[in-house]
């Protein structure tokens, strides 16, 4: 089985880093999505929380797919961290006072 690197060659550090990005980064991004929805959606509190929870799993799955499809580990991480940062900023800005 080829590791997810078109140029071939087994590179354990890159693989481990991707697995971490997928498992931990994916969970973190899912959590941030659930928080952003809970904070930002202009709905009843319970509704916004439920929608956030339901979407978070798609975000998690999306991150995993992205991480293993990205051309190199750097891009993989960037694709997790940038949206994560963005979500954090937006949630922070829209936090209930």
């Amino acid at each position: 089985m080829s590791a997810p690197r078109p140029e071939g060659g087994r590179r354990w550090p890159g693989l481990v880093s991707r697995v971490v990005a997928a498992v931990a980064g994916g969970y973190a991004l899912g959590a941030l999505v659930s928080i952003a929805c809970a904070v930002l959606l202009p709905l009843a509190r319970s509704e916004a929380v439920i929608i956030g929870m339901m979407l978070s799993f798609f975000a998690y799955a999306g991150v995993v797919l992205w991480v293993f499809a990205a051309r190199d580990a750097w891009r993989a991480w960037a694709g997790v961290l940038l949206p994560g940062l963005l979500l954090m900023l937006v949630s922070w800005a829209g936090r209930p006072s």
Partner: protein
Amino acid sequence: MKEGFRQCMAWLHTWAGLIPGWILFAVFLTGTAAYYRGEISAWMRPDLRMEDRGPEAAMLGVRELQRIAPDATGWIIGLPTESDPLLRLYWRPPGERRFRDGILDPATGRVAEGGETRGGEFFYRFHFELHMPPIWGRWLVGFCAMAMLVAIISGIITHRRIFADFFTFRPGKAGSRSWLDAHNLLAVLALPYHLMITYTGLLTLMTMYMPWGMQLAYKGDQQAFIAEALSIAPQPRPARETAPMTDIAPLVAEALRRWPEAGVRRIGVSFPGDANTTIVLGKGDRHELAIRRRELVFAGTTGELRLATGNDAPAAQTVGVALGLHFARFEWPFLHGLFFLSGLAGTAMVGTGLVMWVAKRAPKRGERRSFGLRLVEALNMGTIFGLPIAMFGFFWANRLLPGVLDQRPAWEIRIFFALWLAAYFHASLRPGRRGWAEQAGLAAALAMLLPVLNMLTTRHHLGVALPAGDWLMAGMDLGFLGFGLAFALAARKLWPRPGLAVAAARNRQLREEGA
């Protein structure tokens, strides 16, 4: 780049499928069995089935709880339904956190003694807790479910000929080709089910897996969220004064008047015997897709209706539909059967995927099999055939263990795990077709003899159940026969017969030359 992308997804599909694969197989199979958990429980306690489902049954339950647990801090009565015809009693003794439980014997009106079993509940709980401490089991299953979601999506991307191969199955093709066909068919033809069951499975425990939005919005008060989202009435505080409880029957009759179709499934009494006791009647979900908590809350001493709960907001409704699809508690036999078959297809999809991993790496003649390959093959055999053996063994244990036995339910479960472990040992000692054939043969024998065992040990065997039109008992026995037959066919096909293999290869060659 496009091919590179597909390769990446194929790689991801392989490993996201293999690593949690054995757990996923077990979750799928026991979860599929749990579609009939009421029927399984009833098969395991056939003498305790109850015809009455209304006020009378509720009264019997209350009377018995008043006798055995008058000082409990809470009671719950699970009323019987058509598919789950046992009357269950739960009570929490003072100073304890967990409920104890029993089943009411309709013949005596008392909690049945002897023959205790976890019944179908064992498979149900196993499929999301793996018989581990709940926290660990649930997180582990959640992790595997997430991997499954990833495997499904990456699998769709990898499979480039979904429509061209939609009906393609070529058994008897060399190597892993026919396994790939089977895997693709099982995945593609039941794809809506696989996506649905995996995602809704995650949703069933979402407040545990993804609590962060809730934590923030409710400042860590999970109870407040649950009260709002599920609209559950707040728990009363005990007045610490005794007062007699009102008669339950009129309350149930009132609920049945409001819910003529769905009926009452559950009766909760908090602080029975206290002046502040409340009685909560929960609606059944016979013919409703969405699981929505609908409750009637009565004052326990006067029987006055205080509150009718239920949350119809769109997101809460959506979750209700998702949970309804996952639990499939509706009582439409045909639809229920379709879910069961789809669950079996999912189980087989995971199983064929696991087998394919080995088949693709089969060593050439004379090569040694690597340790990893042998390990995966043994795990495959011990899971794919070993788990059914253990499940059938669980039913055997139910019929063969003495009725009165200390920790009887635990013994049934020990036998289940002992058989499963033995299957792994056998698989590691007997790699290859021979081992597979032997385990299939054992599973077939265990399954096909279950109706016979039932005949020897109970008065509810096929000879009685069929003429009486008792489709619950007859259905279980016929189901065992069906599974036994399937395993017997598998065993026959797998049994190594050197002469035959040569002849088959020759035939195939001739056919291909002729074509």
